[in-house]
């Protein structure tokens, strides 16, 4: 497979320059070109439906709403490209928001310690997922499904089924506010800045040795192991990244919406849909982190368009399901050609 002309990223993919994507050329598996085309078409459609969409403040507000999903997709990418899944991110986001509200309880002074704790908690959950998956050799699908159930149950037990406490305004800053008075842009949302930081880090990580090994592990775990790669460590780090991304997304989502029990509901599937839409192959080894993030942006654009067209929320899950099915089918077909 590594000599496949249509796969410029290959099995020791030097995650190329530019966006850090695998789509510098070609249309093969893992390429970002298809998602770019879909994104452009959707953006044109949204622009027709909502002419002021391209005003900088409106566009930034859109990016602000898309930021948590894009960050989650970046985290999920690391796990998927190594051949695993992380189904626990949705319930992890809910747990983080509920923990934050309970611990902060309206006290501004608690904001920063609690943020540190949330990031730590995300890493801890990622570590447990990674260790159980790699050392105990439980399939990640089962590990993270179990973690999902553990978190849902724990949150419910801890709170008695209704949200308690309150988030401080300082905490909510990141998801709601921005730097005011920026020329042309108006307000530059903090969420967009956080997103930019995460995107740069993710692309850099994939261009480092770690990224190369991660792709190799996903492409062919046995070969990677034979060549001396520490596969367990790399896969565990991928889960850590996913947990950390969920924590960051939770801080933004909690800021946006306030205390909520449903904030993370279904996010794991939305994130996986986004990653798949971005051309990343389920099963690992193919696709770029830029593609995954573009996939999330595309999905958010699609949801925006559906909303503008007056399509109800229920139908948008059906659309997500169709995307997963179509993307996997297309990916399989492309590998056969």
């Amino acid at each position, binding site marked *: 497979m590594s000599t496949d002309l249509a796969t410029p990223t290959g099995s020791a993919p030097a995650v190329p320059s530019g966006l850090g994507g695998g789509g510098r050329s070609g249309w093969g598996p893992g390429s970002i070109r298809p998602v770019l085309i879909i994104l452009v078409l959707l953006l044109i459609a949204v622009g027709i439906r909502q002419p002021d969409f391209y005003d900088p403040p409106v566009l930034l507000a859109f990016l602000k709403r898309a930021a948590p999903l894009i960050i989650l997709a970046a985290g999920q990418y690391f796990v998927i490209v190594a051949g695993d899944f992380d189904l626990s991110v949705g319930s992890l986001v809910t747990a983080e928001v509920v923990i934050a509200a309970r611990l902060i309880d309206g006290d501004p002074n608690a904001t920063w310690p609690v943020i540190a704790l949330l990031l730590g908690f995300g890493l801890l959950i990622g570590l447990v997922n990674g260790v159980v998956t790699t050392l105990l050799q439980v399939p990640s699908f089962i590990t993270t499904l179990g973690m999902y159930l553990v978190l849902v149950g724990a949150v419910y037990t801890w709170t008695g089924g209704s949200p308690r406490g309150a988030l401080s305004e300082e905490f909510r800053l990141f998801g*709601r506010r921005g730097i005011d008075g920026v020329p042309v842009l108006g307000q530059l949302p903090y969420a967009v800045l956080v997103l930019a930081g995460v995107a740069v880090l993710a692309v850099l990580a994939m261009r480092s040795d770690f990224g190369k090994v991660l792709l190799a592990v996903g492409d062919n775990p046995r070969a990677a192991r034979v060549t001396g790669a520490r596969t367990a460590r790399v896969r565990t780090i991928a889960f850590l990244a996913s947990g950390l991304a969920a924590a960051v997304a939770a801080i933004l989502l909690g800021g946006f*919406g306030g*205390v909520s029990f449903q904030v993370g509901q279904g996010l794991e599937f939305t994130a996986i849909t986004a990653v798949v839409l971005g051309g990343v192959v389920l099963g690992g080894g193919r696709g770029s982190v830029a593609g995954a993030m573009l996939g999330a942006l595309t999905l958010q654009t699609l949801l925006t368009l559906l909303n503008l067209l007056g*399509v109800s929320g229920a139908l948008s899950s059906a659309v997500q399901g169709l995307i997963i099915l*179509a993307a996997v089918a297309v990916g399989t077909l492309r590998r056969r050609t």
Partner: protein
Amino acid sequence: MRRSTPFLLAVCTAVAVGVVGCTSDVPGASPSAGPSGAGTGETSKFFVQADHDNELALRTKSATGPADKPWEQALDPKTVETAKYKKAGPYHLCFSNAGVGNPWRQVGFKNMQAEVKLHPEIKTFTVADAESKDDKQISDITDLLGKGCDALIVSPNTTATLTPAVEQACAKVPVIVFDRGVNTKCPVTFINPIGGYAFGATGAEFLVEKVKPKGKILALRILPGVDVLEARWGAAKVVFDKSDLDVVGVEFTDGDAAKTKTIVSNYIQRFGDIDGIWMDAGATAVAAAEAFEDAGKPFPAIVGEDQQDFLKMWQDKKLTAIAPTYPTYQWRTPVIAALKILNGEAVASPWKLPQPTITQDNLGQYVQADMPPLHYAMCGCATLPGYPKDWGGK
């Protein structure tokens, strides 16, 4: 060929995604007509015209009882004799609670516990918490009957399922039911405020008064199928149907802040602006208002409830708002009623409590900066022992 096949497939995917968007445009062909162009939708099977009319009439009746203690007042009371229950103290009072699963019930239960402390003649107060489960509440009631209660207070989890258990209890002790009802006349009295129709109509009438004709209204409901919430929306629907307001959407929020904010943000994006927000409960009113703030739009006329976070926002941001209430002070009344019954005094049955509304004019007296955001202002608890600390205040 190697390159062209994937290319074709990619284009097909793009087209397929586009088609989903295009075809789904058909039902909502006229965007200004709202979701499926239905406005307020069909009348719910929960809607009872006579109850609706009765509740709306009760709103203007004056209450009997001490003016400064609305929890002791009764609207249009018909009394029942209770001489046969007269008994010397001290008393053992029992309470079967549906649960404390939301802030409203948490505040209410604190009110009741404090009310009990006011009466030294209550020697024992036994509480069973059903944790919002019907089966647990049925066995709770049976257990309590074996503990020698002199009177039993029941706040039923659901109406129909708890009826046989309440009937069983009536045969042994005087029973007082409050908040949600049961389908039997056997309790000595049933205590609740005017009700859901009055709540829903008050909010909707405010929007009709404040929003310009043809103004766009978004109605937010928690969930379908709960009688008190169905009544609130049922009455609002009657008001909106008679008005020239345009109800562009009726959405279910699950009472969740994040979901509410997302829904409202989507409507703002879709319609450009929304002129009024009607809600069947105020717990997420702040999230709804924030959506306008974050979108850089003026606040709409909005219906909330008496939770502190909303009242504070109303005052700080000078909202055009109203807060119908379902007062938590009703949790005090059953204790008072139980003692009257055990003392052989006549009590109102049914005991309809007044259901005040917070408006711009009296807002100031209900905003309490020291109380937590989820505290309900209409608690009638400011003079109770342990206030404000036991309610989470400073």
